[in-house]
């Protein structure tokens, strides 16, 4: 066993985009019970250092596999696909994105209608779900397509972050 294991192997899970979240959660707790620095508070410095390294790795692995976009990027990375910083995307997709941005802006300008924002977020969530399903399908058949879908997911995720931030602003959180 070493630090070079991939995140799926760390939890003894199959390398697959679909992850059994409950199982992941269980194994995360089981592993932390063994490696967390608190277990070595009375130990030697070596043990403490190792424990911090292991617990950090387990946390990072858990976060990556728990959330869908980081998981998608990670699994592509395992297949040797390195994402580009400025990918070229289909014009139609970009037009849609601009349109969605404008919708969000008009919600903000129009005295911030919370109901409109809610339905906007609903729509976004659905679009993200659809992209995820497509990604799962494409992963084993067409890696290029899967890569393109991840870029699209990145766009939508960013938009979702903006929508959430707007909600926080409107609710004055």
């Amino acid at each position, binding site marked *: 066993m*070493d630090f070079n294991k991939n995140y799926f192997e760390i939890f003894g899970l199959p390398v697959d985009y679909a992850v059994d979240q409950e199982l992941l959660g269980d194994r995360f*707790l089981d592993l932390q019970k063994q490696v967390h620095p608190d277990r070595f508070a*009375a130990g*030697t*410095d070596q043990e403490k250092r190792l424990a911090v390294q292991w617990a950090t790795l387990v*946390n*990072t692995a858990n976060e990556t596999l728990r959330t869908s976009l980081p998981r998608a990027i990670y699994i592509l990375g395992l297949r040797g696909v390195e994402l580009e910083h400025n990918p070229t995307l289909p014009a139609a997709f970009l037009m849609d994105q601009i349109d969605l941005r404008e919708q969000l802006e008009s919600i903000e300008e129009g005295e911030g209608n919370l109901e409109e924002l809610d339905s906007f977020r609903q729509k976004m969530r659905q679009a993200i779900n659809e992209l995820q399903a497509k990604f799962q399908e494409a992963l084993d058949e067409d890696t290029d397509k899967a890569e393109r879908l991840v870029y699209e997911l990145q766009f939508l995720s960013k938009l979702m972050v903006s929508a959430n931030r707007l909600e*926080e602003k409107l609710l004055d959180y």
Partner: protein
Amino acid sequence: MALLQITEPGQAVDPHQRKRAAGIDLGTTNSLIASVRAGVAETLADEQGRHMLPSVVRYTSSGVIVGDEALTEAVNDSMNTIVSVKRLMGRGIKDVATLGDQLPYRFSASEGGMPRIETVSGNVTPVEVSAEILRTLVDRASATLAGDLDGVVITVPAYFDDAQRQATKDAAQLAGVNVLRLLNEPTAAAIAYGLDSGSEGVIAVYDLGGGTFDISLLRLRKGVFEVLATGGDSALGGDDFDRAIAAWIVEQSGYAKPLASEQLRGLLMASRSIKESLTDNAKVDIDFDRDGVQFKGILDRTTFDDLVAPLVDASIKACLRAVRDAGIELGEIHNVVLVGGSTRVPQVIDKVAEYFGKTPLNNMDPDKVVAVGAAVQANVLVGNKPDDEMLLLDVLPLSLGLETVGGLAEKVISRNTAIPAVRAQEFTTYKDGQTAMLIHVLQGERELVTDCRSLARFELTGIPPMVAGAAKIEVMFNVDADGLLSVSARETSTGTQAGVEVKPSYGLTDKEITSMLQASFEHATEDANRRSLMEARVESGRVIEALGNALAEDGAALLMESDIHALQQAIEELGRVSEGEDHLAISEGTELLGRASEEFASLRMDAAVRKALAGRNIAEVDKEI
């Protein structure tokens, strides 16, 4: 819930080997120390039977007084009597200036930008003041437990930032106590309540103390307390309620001149008792006549509620944010727990109940529950319960980031990330031949650098000269289990480790700590060498014991006979060196033994990881290993 029993099982550690551990609640208004004795965690009293130690330190020309005896002089000698020092921990001289008229002290700046309070016995930093409180508590525990403490857990508000946590650790170092862990106050309370109820599920802990407010959401599952999200305000507490009443009295009295420090202190103390009376009474008769401020009249609960409503509402808003961050629905919260003396205010109870839609639990003493939870954790960490499965998984309370172009803050690790955590960020040079780079580390949620807390400025040096944009500088953020940040950097294309010089924006410099430690030795007329020798022996003893236990447990399974023999010899050798008087030789020997056992430590950790996965999916795990 066998996992969480605090009663010692019969075959537990040999009682002679039981370690002395304590939990310390270092509060804004009051502090407590608790320990697990005969299986029960309880707070420890002083010789007069008092459990709560007012967090008040008075400096006189003839010595330092801590606690009740200092509090009685707080009004008459306000300049030399430091109260609510927790509010100043990890704060810069500029922050302190914004607290302005709330504080009666005279400040001057120290080397690291930390404020020093001018007193009759010289200038003191908040860290030193806190160390006095810690020392008093630790002495109490040593007397009660009949021996020096092996380690303590100190609680901090979950919302404390890096500088405030570091300052707390510095205070412990100054007081000469071994800190096993900094523990978030609401998490400590959750342990106490979780143990009490034994129920699994999501717990919300609403902790309103004298000077700080915290909200934490935790999930208790399989003996693990997992913090889902935390939030709050490190400058909101019962003190603010007192100030609201004081301001009201001044307004009613028509007194228009600025208040002197004695006047303010007197007003605040009167206001606190008025607030406390309003917990059980619908109105309070006030007859205040002191230092020129005169007011005779009635403060009723409704008026008081109006005065403090903005403060309580601010706390509820923080609850909203935390629930959102945790990604849970309100309905998923099983229990709401109230902690901190200020949760006795009826309006607080009402508004918390209204927001969470549940009657909050307050059946444990809100003043003691944090110390009790910390004592339970200290007992586990010190090694008294080796088979205990209780574990805490905590999160980073505030995002950590870096300054980028245009005075903007870029987040590197987001708030509520599970800790310990690591993140790397890549930068490049913008000029040909550039060999150094300035990095500004920030903490906070806001977009502008000026709205975030400045933690440190780093200068990366020794970057090999290259054309602009060719160098790849990787800056690593490491957050440990105490929530403390360390930063390292390297140039990745050549592998050059860049030099990092840390200048904490608010903390004490190492030099300042060293000189304070020296000063405290002189003060206690204790020989510094003697102390170094003792510390070296404690450390070598700890390593010898830990390694001995590890060999007994796993040596035969993981090591060759010859390796075991070599390690045992090394242990004996260190034992011999430790009997000598040379503290440097002991430290060196400890270091050597540590290195010799590195491989073994690594094998044990791997075995532990295998064990965690075993029994689940053996075929699969075996295949991988």
